């Protein structure tokens, strides 16, 4: 049902020289750390008092140098909030998770930012959603909601204006369903509610002044040329921010001295809605996370829940899953490259070629899954449906065969030919936004961003899922870690993905089941926690799911690669010109649906 806690055993296996094992740690921090023995849970529970010391030992002595995810869970019945950390070794091997439990009234946890800088935004998110105060955090302010918002939305006792019931399905829908729009019940006709003591006449809105003041500016003294520091807001409505994303930039002349990303302009409350949905109902919502890679999102969520349910996926479905995930990767990278070039000023032409190649892939999705972007294709234990027999007047298998063997490789080669040696691209990209390997790991970056810095970390290899172990493919890496390498790595990855697709089409069994058992809409999932993750085009996409044995997840958290990758954006942009900020952002390749969720 739940995977065994393999951390102890795996420790010796991976670090033969390292004598420190988890048992030793428990012994050493006598009483301050214990194994999580709840049914279906794994990992450790650490007391907040010596949390820093323990985390340092995890990182330095046990080798868990990559903090992938930080999140919170509100166990309201036990009257505590749990902050859950997932850490990995960059060399590979199974991850570890550790938790800190604090009371709900005054939750204080020491921050991990000095040890894992990648915890920065994720801790701010936990603060925003649960009100957990991270002691020592350099910039603890709300991240998804705005300063001054009332309440901590993900707490179980917090209810929104349109609250109907704790879990779906709602009773008002059937059998006596009388259609009613939710706004009819609000005195304001809108999705709003205010605290009872709110007095509008003696109230003034929060301003962004503190944010602007917190930015690091140059000291005008001691410079030959007297220049003023100015603060510029790029976004949330800006053609080059890839959606509703805002960068607050402090400038000295044209040079960036500091940059703070501001997000939440597309915060659609995935996790709150996700906890009300049944497990199955969350599947179409995952499409709308990273809406350029919905198949990958489906895949990760299906894996997380399948881990809890312990169902097997039939052979043919496994192959189709890999095919779809890899086609998604090509489509996503096409888009990323096209719009990186847009940001560089090559307005439209490269993007048009890239979109054209993507359209061919979308045709396959539309014909099989039923929608171009919102595929909703995977189910727990298989897939929704098999390939159709015909596509565009041709045999589907022939069509996909031709796509992965001829047209996509051609499109990739053409893009490569078109851009790689272009002098303007090279001069704008080489040496811009350099990210060192150490920093890339420390800031928990993932995906192409990490691999362009020379770290060969790809979940398809280090924590293989599905049937990826059957295919022959490389994990491309580059060493410079600049924008140009991030572009090249995407081209390399597309080639590898095409290679995987070709192998899938060669090996896929021509007949077979695509779903285990009978499709059910109403089922319970065994209690426990599960962290399912996939290597999405943008990096590690993780789903942390807690079930309490009912049909709805108790906690549903998405570790979004775009969101975590943005942690390093400020660091990357410092010292560059303001025009480069747009390019660096383009090279990280974010999708706001996933950043803000």
């Amino acid at each position, binding site marked *: 049902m739940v995977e065994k806690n393999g951390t102890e055993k795996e420790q010796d296996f991976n670090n033969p020289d390292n004598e420190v094992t988890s048992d030793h740690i428990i012994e050493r921090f006598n009483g301050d750390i214990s194994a999580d023995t709840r049914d279906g849970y794994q990992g450790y529970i650490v007391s907040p008092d010596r949390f820093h010391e323990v985390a340092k030992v995890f990182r330095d002595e046990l080798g868990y140098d990559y903090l992938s995810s930080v999140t919170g869970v509100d166990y309201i019945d036990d009257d505590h909030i749990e902050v859950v950390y997932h850490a990995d070794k960059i060399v590979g091997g199974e991850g570890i998770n550790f938790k800190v439990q604090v009371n709900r009234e005054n939750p204080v946890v020491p921050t991990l930012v000095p040890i894992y800088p990648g915890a920065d935004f994720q801790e701010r998110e936990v603060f925003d959603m649960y009100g957990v105060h991270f002691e020592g955090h350099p910039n603890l302010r709300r991240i998804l909601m705005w300063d001054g918002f009332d309440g901590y939305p993900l707490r179980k006792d917090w209810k929104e204006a349109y609250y109907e019931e704790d879990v779906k399905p709602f009773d008002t829908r059937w059998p006596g369903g009388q259609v009613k729009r939710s706004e009819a019940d609000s005195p304001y006709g809108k999705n709003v509610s205010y605290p009872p003591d*709110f007095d509008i006449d003696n109230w003034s809105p929060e301003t962004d002044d503190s944010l602007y003041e917190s930015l690091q500016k140059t000291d005008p003294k001691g410079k030959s040329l007297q220049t003023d520091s100015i603060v510029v807001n790029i976004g949330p409505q800006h053609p080059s921010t890839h959606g509703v994303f805002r960068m607050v930039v402090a400038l000295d002349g044209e040079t960036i001295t500091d940059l703070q990303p501001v997000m939440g302009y597309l915060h659609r409350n995935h996790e709150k809605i996700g906890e009300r949905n049944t497990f199955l109902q969350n599947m179409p919502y995952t499409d709308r996370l990273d809406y350029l890679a919905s198949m990958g999102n489906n895949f990760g969520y299906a894996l997380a829940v399948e881990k809890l349910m312990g169902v097997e996926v039939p052979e043919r479905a496994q192959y189709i899953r890999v095919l779809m995930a890899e086609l998604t990767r090509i489509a996503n990278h096409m888009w990323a490259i096209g719009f990186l070039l847009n940001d560089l000023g090559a307005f439209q032409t490269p993007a048009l070629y890239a979109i054209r190649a993507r359209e061919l892939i979308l045709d396959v999705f539309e014909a099989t899954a039923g929608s171009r972007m919102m595929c909703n294709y995977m189910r727990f234990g298989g897939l929704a449906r098999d390939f159709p027999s015909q596509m565009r007047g041709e045999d589907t298998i022939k069509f996909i065969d031709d796509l992965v063997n001829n047209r996509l490789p051609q499109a990739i080669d053409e893009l490569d030919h078109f851009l790689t040696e272009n002098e303007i691209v090279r001069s704008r990209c080489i040496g811009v936004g350099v990210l060192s390997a150490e920093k890339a790991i420390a800031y928990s970056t993932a995906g192409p961003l990490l691999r362009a810095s020379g770290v060969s970390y790809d979940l398809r290899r280090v924590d293989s899922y599905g049937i990826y172990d059957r295919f022959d493919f490389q994990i491309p890496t580059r060493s410079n870690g600049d924008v140009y390498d991030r572009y090249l790595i995407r081209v390399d990855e597309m080639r590898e993905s095409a290679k995987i697709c070709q192998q899938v089409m060669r090996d896929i069994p021509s007949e077979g089941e695509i779903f285990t058992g009978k499709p059910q809409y109403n089922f319970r999932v065994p209690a426990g926690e599960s962290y399912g993750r996939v290597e999405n085009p943008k990096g590690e996409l993780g789903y942390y799911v807690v079930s309490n044995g009912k049909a709805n997840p108790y906690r549903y958290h998405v570790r979004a690669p775009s969101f975590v990758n943005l942690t390093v954006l400020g660091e990357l942009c410092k010292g560059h010109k303001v025009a480069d900020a747009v390019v660096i952002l383009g090279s990280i390749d974010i999708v706001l649906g996933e950043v803000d969720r």
Partner: protein
Amino acid sequence: MNDELSNPDIPVPDELQSTVTITSLDKIYNWGRRSSIWPMVFGLACCAIEMICTAASRFDIARFGMEVFRATPRQADLMIVSGTVTKKMVPQIVRLFNQMPEPKYVMAMGACASGGGPFKEGYNVVSGIDKFVPVDVYVPGCPPTPQALLHGLMKLQEKIDGQSLKSVRWYGQEASEAVPVPVLGPDLLDPRQHALLAQQAGQMPVNVDIEKDL
């Protein structure tokens, strides 16, 4: 000249058929506007991707004279609200709308922009942009396919065709008023509801009461 421009109400002598076309001022005015609607570069969420695909080579919005996506609202005629409108974003959207010069049009693309969409129940989601700015055309779908969006744009063209110089509001005596920009407080505050807010401050139903009402 274009066939669709000729006015059948006014007869043209046969010998002049090939050289003269008579049209009405309204017709030529609307023809010019409908064939060069410049949308604003304004993408919110998933639907924005489909909007970009509509502008790309396969569906090619340029065939409608609409390919000139303007990054500034000052030069735009049409705002395609393409995606979920959140409370945090709505002040900016209203401000952008106010900055657009008349004549201006708003299209709600997709379920979210029309009425909240699948995320309607969420605490940070506005249930429809029409709660704040007037919407001309609604395009349902989640997301609408590029062809559905094109259909919506054609509906907008039809709407423009139906307008007359005599009655359009932007040549009227009164200048159109700007929509008051919402403010972010403990929740989203609409200045137009200030009186209601002030009045209900004391006895405003708390979340829990709303639950009871349902």
